[in-house]
């Protein structure tokens, strides 16, 4: 998530319904609403950033990446979009314009850029990737400010705490580090190792924090992924969202579907109204909703295909989900 926290509107996740179905020619892997509220930006397996105008459905292809893009962040004031790809490139684009072209292309990480986030004050961009590093960049010029080494594995996600003093990064093995931005060092670690396993049979790691989000009030952090994996290479495991209490740094709840589902929780958002929403992909796709304080999802909506990410519009009503079947779909949880 990026941009200002969505307004607290009256929503009902059980009313989630499809309101937009944006089509492309290649599967999508990630997407974000822009903070101006006009667009959804999505990264596809054809290396394109695809911008859909929410009202008109107009599709604009942003060419510049040579690999898949799952990392997005925005600078609201400067109206910039940042996209990170799996060749280590970070591209800065204007949000608006008919045919945006890269403002700057930065070799940001060795290996994949896994996630991007902008600080609440809009001055800093954080990135993380397969070089086990977290990096901080100056907005808007994209100058490297700091490298934060410390993870021993691929860093899968970054997020700024809403108060702006701390940055959180999470890796393949479920190590969640809290960085004090003033000091530039790790001040705490949280344990999401439940989202990781070394599969002895296959001799490989499986898991990682696939999505991460703070609650707008900063009291909770949610980390999504897969757990209880019995077969890494077939993806046989269960989706899980680990909810942390920010003050104590301890796990508060383990959020699971009510009805068994096989696959990964690929996206999580924390709604200002207190709901937690997640999507999963594996054996099909599902959108889940949890009420505050409850461990089992109280609502599940079967999706048309494997869902691969999730974002919440600033209006608090719309959810954007990128799918394997070449679509980004928008679901509305607001009043009908």
């Amino acid at each position, binding site marked *: 998530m990026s941009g200002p926290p969505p307004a607290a509107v009256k929503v009902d996740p059980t009313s989630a319904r499809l309101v937009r179905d944006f089509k492309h020619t290649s599967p999508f892997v990630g997407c974000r609403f822009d903070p101006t509220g006009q667009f959804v930006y999505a990264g596809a397996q054809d290396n394109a950033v695809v911008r859909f105008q929410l009202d008109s459905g107009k599709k604009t292809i942003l060419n510049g990446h040579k690999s898949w893009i799952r990392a997005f962040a925005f600078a609201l004031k400067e109206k910039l979009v940042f996209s990170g790809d799996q060749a280590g490139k970070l591209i800065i684009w204007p949000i608006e314009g008919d045919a945006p072209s890269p403002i700057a292309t930065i070799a940001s990480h060795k290996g994949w850029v896994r996630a991007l986030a902008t600080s609440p004050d809009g001055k800093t961009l954080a990135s993380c990737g397969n070089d086990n590093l977290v990096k901080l960049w100056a907005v808007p010029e994209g100058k490297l400010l700091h490298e934060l080494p410390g993870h021993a594995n691929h860093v899968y996600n970054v997020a700024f705490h809403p108060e702006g003093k701390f940055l959180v990064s999470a890796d393949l093995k479920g190590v969640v580090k809290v960085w004090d931005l003033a000091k530039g060092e790790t001040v705490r670690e949280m344990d999401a190792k439940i989202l990781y396993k070394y599969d002895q049979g296959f001799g490989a790691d499986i898991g990682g924090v696939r999505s991460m989000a703070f609650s707008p009030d900063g009291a909770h952090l949610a980390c999504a992924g897969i757990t209880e994996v019995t077969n890494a290479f077939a993806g046989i495991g269960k989706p899980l969202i680990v909810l942390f209490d920010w003050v104590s740094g301890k796990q508060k709840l383990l959020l699971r579907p009510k009805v068994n589902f096989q696959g990964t929780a690929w996206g999580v958002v924390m709604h200002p109204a207190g709901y937690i929403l997640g999507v999963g992909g*594996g054996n099909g796709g599902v959108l889940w909703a949890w009420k505050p304080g409850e461990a089992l999802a109280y609502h599940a909506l079967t999706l048309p295909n494997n869902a691969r990410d999730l974002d919440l519009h600033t209006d608090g009503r719309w959810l954007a989900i990128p799918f394997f079947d070449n679509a980004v779909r928008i679901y509305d949880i607001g009043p009908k």
Partner: protein
Amino acid sequence: MTNRATYACNSPAHDLSRRSFLAGTAGALGSLSFGNFLHGAAAGKLEKDQKRVLVIWLSGGVSQLETWDPKPGTNTGGPFQTIETSVPGVHICELLPHTAKQMHRMALVRGINTIEDDHGKGAVIMHTGRRQEPGMTYPHLGSVCAKMLGSDRNPLPGYIHVTPRGNGGVNAADSAFLGPRYASISLDNGQAPANITRPTELNESSDAERNALRLRASERFLKKRRTADTEAYTHSYDQAAQLMRQKDLFDVSKEPAKYADMYGKHDFGRHCLMARRLLEGGATFVKVTHSNYDTHHENFDFHIEQLGEFDQPFAALLEDLHQRGLLSSTLVVVMSEFGRTPNINRNYGRDHWSRAWSVALAGCGIKGGAVSGKTNANGTAVTDRMVHGGHLFHTYLKAVGLDPKKNFYIDQRPIPMADPKASVISEVLA
């Protein structure tokens, strides 16, 4: 050369002597027509010119698109880029930066179509060069090499399989009609063969004494009853004793620290280093299994991890073999049971795919930098020089100086060493 072979050579009329020939209850073993029955001089020469084979088995089916035949920027290409190699014009996947620097010592076969998407049956094709057929089992490449390239004087098992996990013993089925002597022995997680260590309560001198007693007892018996089988039995203890003396070969901790760094300290690195120790120590055929590549889910994350483990040790192994002067006499093959689907499934996985995939070769008999075969733009079909497991098997044998058109004979039945319907892929041979 074994006593058994000596005995055979000394027999008139080539019959290993009728009694010995008859003594075995299995005709299958008694009458194999060629192999190790060499005269002393020939055996000596064989050792000097010893050819060896190293197979790296990427278990589960490595993706050709993430290794030897990348298709970036296409609908099947996935997120990875290509990189240049030490051979101009030959590009491979960015996940293999160290290997790319060894490409001038390697050849690629990119036009493989084995038409078999089942793990077990694909493994049969790749190990034996033939499709599985009811009622007939063919020996593994390792068993053929153990028999045809090995010397019976060599105490090391002819076909050694270094594996992360195995059954720890002999896999008798591997050698089929060639007999258990040429079956593979698994070294689980790179541990020495079972029972190689003398029991603690038995000291060396007692062991020597009891073996002297055994030999004297056998000699008394053999004065009037010597056969090829009895010779082989006696000889097996000599081999055991020699192997026990060489057990350090199985201990990579004896290597200088710099090699541990060069190969990497994880299991596959250790296993590659052990392979080099064994090859240098005279092993004929070593297979190292790296597990696992069966990436129906998260193909890309898993290939980063698995090829990240593979790349450096493999490149180090080629470099090290070259520096020791062994590469020119060691055929190196990187293979799997099949490749992976160009199509990327909904779980970021690639599934089983045998229609268009690749194998990499290096070393003995191989033309460095050669590339055979081509696939179409997004890798879904072979467009040039399609080959199957039989062609590969011919090529391996030819590369180490064997004639793949020759036959084994079980009883009176000729069994071609390699599938007679296939032939050598000559463009990858030096």
